[in-house]
């Protein structure tokens, strides 16, 4: 089953969350990344995400497999937007269900950290000053 998804359209967290409901679940942790109106001291008007879709899909799925292996969780999902987003829109969502909250929190954190570090998705920001650019953070990919 596909647990990592790239989405062209707004993310419906209620439906995604419902897929993780299960009588054995005691703790559900989720994280959402939203488009902020500022980044590194600059006013942001909007942004665009571009992905290398086939590799992003495979690498995202790998991150979720790792989360299942490392933590005592019941299930995990992640969706990342591509295309144009406005301020306040959701860019990424992670949801994790587990019997206990320790594992749910740890896995949720792991997934968002690894997705940001490894999955081939790039952010293009448009600034209030009129310029725009791709973000290529200066950390080891």
């Amino acid at each position, binding site marked *: 089953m596909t647990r990592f998804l790239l989405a062209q359209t707004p993310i419906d967290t209620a439906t995604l969350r419902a897929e993780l409901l299960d009588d054995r679940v005691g703790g559900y942790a989720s994280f959402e*990344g939203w488009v902020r109106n500022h980044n590194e001291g600059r006013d942001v008007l909007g942004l665009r*995400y*571009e*992905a*290398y879709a*086939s*590799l*992003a899909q*495979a*690498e995202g799925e790998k991150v979720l497999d790792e989360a299942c292996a490392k933590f005592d969780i019941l299930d995990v999902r992640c969706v*990342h937007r591509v295309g144009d987003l406005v301020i306040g829109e959701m*860019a*990424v969502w992670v949801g994790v269900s587990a019997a206990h909250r320790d594992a749910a929190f740890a896995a949720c954190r792991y997934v*968002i950290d690894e*997705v*940001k*570090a*490894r*999955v*081939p*998705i*790039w*952010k*293009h920001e448009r600034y209030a000053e009129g310029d725009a*650019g*791709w*973000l*290529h*953070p*200066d*950390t080891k*990919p």
Partner: protein
Amino acid sequence: MAKVTVLYFASLRDAAGMSSEVVDCEGDLRALYGELRERHGFALPVERLRVAVDGAFARWSDEARDGSEVAFIPPVSGG
């Protein structure tokens, strides 16, 4: 001599002015990037990129295979 399709993303695509091209290639993937960096004026050094072949991460020391699809992956910024 191998003929490969190269994919460009993000700032590499902007700099190349195209999202892909077919190039002739001799040697490993590191050499291929060096040649294309010179041709298109890419700002990013090879140390800051990863490379993928046919949709899977690869090593810079891998030889380019004829007919394969090579993608240079600049530092990612999802999330």
